[in-house]
């Protein structure tokens, strides 16, 4: 018997569902649980090589031993970044994505049982990429984007989403500013045009300039979530 196609009916269904909805749901749960424990979570986002790991090494020298911190490292391959953090005496967990260009909330969720309850700061170093990580909420309280001097001052306008969704912009490697054509004021101005609420900081892990101010910003933010909890 020939297949009777006329029996099939076409039907249109309205859905209106967010493709990032499942990620957002997990991220909200992570944020709620960590914030309730009084842990400030910071998602560090940037291109590869802007100095995220080096910045964490420098921050650890200021924050510890007074504060307890831990780091989740996201990379496509290797444990190298986690090893560098552990060498500083800081607990670190490496997520190797095996090719994926960003971290997702469910990957953080899997590590949840390992996170000590008495932490002050949980840093998540995202996969080096200024595009894809911007779309994925990881449950952080603060999203911090790094822009290093060698990358050029045009990045905020070229990669707007990373800057629009961040709370804080750190212009890193400022010790290189005298020898490279990066206009710090232009980068700050353009970043503020796309996100007027952005907290702006400049750092140099080489000279140590600005690291204390960044640490103070995180400490103030930690105190703020704890006051809200109380």
């Amino acid at each position, binding site marked *: 018997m020939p297949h009777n196609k006329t*029996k*099939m*009916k*076409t*039907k*249109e*269904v*309205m*859905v*209106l*569902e*967010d*493709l*990032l*909805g*499942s*990620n957002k749901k997990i991220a909200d749960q992570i944020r709620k649980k960590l914030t309730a424990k009084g842990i400030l979570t910071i998602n560090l986002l940037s291109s590869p090589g802007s100095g995220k790991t080096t910045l964490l090494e420098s921050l650890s020298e200021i924050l510890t031993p007074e504060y307890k911190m831990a780091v989740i490292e996201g990379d496509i391959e290797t444990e190298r970044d986690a090893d560098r953090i552990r060498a500083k005496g800081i607990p670190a967990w490496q997520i190797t994505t095996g090719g*994926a*260009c*960003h971290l*997702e909330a469910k990957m953080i969720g899997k590590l949840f049982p390992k996170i000590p309850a008495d932490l002050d700061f949980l840093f998540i170093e995202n996969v080096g990429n200024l*595009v*894809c990580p*911007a*779309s*994925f909420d990881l449950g952080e309280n603060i999203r911090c984007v790094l822009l290093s001097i060698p990358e050029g001052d045009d990045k905020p*306008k070229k990669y*707007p*989403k990373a800057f*629009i969704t961040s709370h804080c912009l750190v212009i890193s490697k400022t010790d290189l500013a005298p020898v490279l054509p990066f206009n710090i004021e232009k980068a700050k101005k353009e970043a*503020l*045009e*796309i*996100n*007027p*609420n952005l907290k702006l900081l400049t750092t140099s892990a080489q000279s140590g300039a600005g690291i204390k101010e960044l640490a103070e910003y995180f400490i103030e933010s930690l105190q703020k979530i704890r006051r809200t909890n109380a």
Partner: protein
Amino acid sequence: MHELSLIANLFEIMEEKAAEKNAKKITHVVLQVGKLAGVVPELLITAFDMYKKDTIASEGNLEIKEVPLKILCRDCKTEVVKDDFVFICAKCGSSNLKTLAGMELYLEKMELEVD
């Protein structure tokens, strides 16, 4: 190229909704993609065509509706569709703005074949 992870999420939603309706096939899928969604529409289509093989949407096609960036100035109440990403009100200079549209990444609707 996070478009493939987004398409994987899309298929999860599509398959769930299609099962609810007892659909035999998904023939057409409409996505709303905001100007600030941070995705490349062409790559979404490539990823969709790669992913659809051996699924309920193997003969389906993806249509992308691009949603412009629309902001409201909370101070002077002006509503503007933006072509750039300058978040400063062109009329009064305020940066007290609200994004009304342009961040979407939504499965809007699907066309199904049912018995």
